[in-house]
């Protein structure tokens, strides 16, 4: 018996020395102090001794990455030291990954914000030389082409996902479809554009340009993304709910429509929104299929349309004389595109928040 009282004879045979549970520790926040020290060191090297920025940062980082674990090893022991080392490595990787993101955001905001004006949003580029003009036509084009792509890709992708999760299971057909969807995910966007272009050449002859062809190209890119995200969301619906419906004598299709889809609604909408955000910035396929124009064209089936990504591209590549206003407009269009994607992500978040099943309210 291990639970006997201390007075029993067994207790006397226990080892005489009792191991301590205490271990010296670095003060709380030691990691942050070390980081501060490293930053001070790096800026001292950079500003004080005139060392270049990158080497200064590298020296500071090395001192932090080696010094903190070494100090910890001396005081806290091996396990804590390793913990500190890994913490430094993981945090550094995160910081490094944030650098390009912040840099892009900063650059686009810095160059794009001054361009934004009411004229920029309400004028097309028709008969504009030099300064002035706007992206009214490109916003329309992007919205229409992307919406048309979503109208085609969402039912296709959602129904495929429903088949895969609710009907296909682990069957051979489902496995083949999963494989093909994976292959489709990897199609380079330029290939999708060429496919759509070749398809429309069959019907309209060489040199065809129309918004709908771009929508078809985007559909090719968007469908596998929708399938994948919707499939994951449908798989998250607990099987118990399906069984509960079956046990009430509900047929399978009604179970899908009335139980599975409403339960997964928030996730499905989020997945679809993110798929839209994924294709809205595609440039290459639209360059081939839709082209670019200076005028506003809201007819998807008739001729060239301007879209934000292609507008950005052509404004940079063929700016005209003088080039500065055109390049500024390119930054403005890039900023607007980024804002649209951010708004879409925000909408997805809100939908998740408002539509997900609530436990208590």
């Amino acid at each position, binding site marked *: 018996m291990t639970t006997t009282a201390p007075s029993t004879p067994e207790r006397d045979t226990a080892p005489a020395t009792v191991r301590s549970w205490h271990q010296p520790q670095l003060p709380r926040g030691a990691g942050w102090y070390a980081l501060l020290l490293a930053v001070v060191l790096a800026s001292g090297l950079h500003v004080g001794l005139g060392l270049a920025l990158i080497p200064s940062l590298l020296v500071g980082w090395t001192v932090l990455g080696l010094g903190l674990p070494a100090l910890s090893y001396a005081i806290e022991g091996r396990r804590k030291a390793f913990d500190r080392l890994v913490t430094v490595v993981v945090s550094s990787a995160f910081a490094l990954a944030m650098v390009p993101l912040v840099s892009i955001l900063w650059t686009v905001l810095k160059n794009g914000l001054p361009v934004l004006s009411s004229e920029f949003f309400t004028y097309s580029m028709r008969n504009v030389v030099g300064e002035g003009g706007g992206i009214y036509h490109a916003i329309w084009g992007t919205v229409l082409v992307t919406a048309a792509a979503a109208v085609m890709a969402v039912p296709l992708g959602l129904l495929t996902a429903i088949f895969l999760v609710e009907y296909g299971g682990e069957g051979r057909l489902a496995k083949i479809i999963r494989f093909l969807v994976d292959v489709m995910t990897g199609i380079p966007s330029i290939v999708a554009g060429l496919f759509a272009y070749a398809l429309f050449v069959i019907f309209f002859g060489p040199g065809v340009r129309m918004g709908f062809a771009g929508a078809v190209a985007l559909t090719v890119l968007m469908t596998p993304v929708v399938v994948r995200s919707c499939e994951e969301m449908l798989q998250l619906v607990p099987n118990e709910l399906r*069984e*509960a419906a079956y046990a009430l004598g509900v047929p399978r299709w*009604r179970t899908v429509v009335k139980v599975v889809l409403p339960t997964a609604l928030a996730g499905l909408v989020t997945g679809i929104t993110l798929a839209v955000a994924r294709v809205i910035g595609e440039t290459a396929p639209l360059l081939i299929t839709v082209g670019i124009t200076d005028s506003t064209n809201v007819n998807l089936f008739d001729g060239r349309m301007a879209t934000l990504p292609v507008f950005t591209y052509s404004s940079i590549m063929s700016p005209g004389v003088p080039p500065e206003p055109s390049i500024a407009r390119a930054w403005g269009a890039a900023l607007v595109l980024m804002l649209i994607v951010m708004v879409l992500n925000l909408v997805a978040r809100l939908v998740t928040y408002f539509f997900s099943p*609530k*436990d208590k309210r």
Partner: protein
Amino acid sequence: MSMRSVLRDSATAPVPTASAAGTSPRPAAIGIDVEDLDIYYGDVHAVRGVTLAIPAQSVTAVIGPSGCGKSTFLRSLNRMHEVARGARVEGTVRVDGRDLYAPGVDPVLVRREIGMVFQRPNPFPTMSIRDNVLAGVRLNGGRLKKDEAEAIVERSLRGANLWDEVKDRLNRPGAGLSGGQQQRLCIARAIAVEPQVLLMDEPCSALDPISTSAIEDLIGQLKDSYTIVIVTHNMQQAARVSDETAFFNLAGVGEPGQLVESGPTTKIFSNPDNPSTEAYITGRFG
């Protein structure tokens, strides 16, 4: 006793349901005859040679160690096991004289008469308490007038001993209730379509003792109107709630499960014929 009067009310009120196509009075609860039933999952022989008569309007408990095919057997009684891929059965199951596995029998129609309550409460998370109760009718495309719907909701929730606890918050989500309340909501949902048989797969194993006691009381009331088959790991529960007991066991390691013996609960628990039944009940194995 309140149960009786509630059900009598429901019999007189013309409440359309998915199962009863209109005016015919509710038929008497029915018995189940299982004859030489074998259940397979693909190549796996899960249950072998079960022959069992389940009397009507009583509680039959199915007990036995884990993995002996109790749940599989229970699910074969309303063809829920077919949800798993490759499941098939041999033998016959007759419910009220009708062969469950005759060719042309639609499992969807079977399940509307043979309800099921699961181990873990599973109310539909997108639906309110009211909609959960009405789910069986609504999901099958039934259109209800408001007063009919209210009648079904009140009758079912009273039948599940939940009415007094939730009558002021019928529009709240069903998932907001406690575990025991959720399980009673699931029972209300099952009896809302007026099934003949109620299958319960360890309905209390996820619940605390107080909720368990509430459900056991409920089972005692429901057996006046329904044929109940309950799978349980809890021997005391089987002894408390059931009239008949069937003991399942594995024929051996890697062998299919089989019915060892069945009979009145008092006999199985006091004087079983088979030594392995006695060993299981007295806690010497399993």
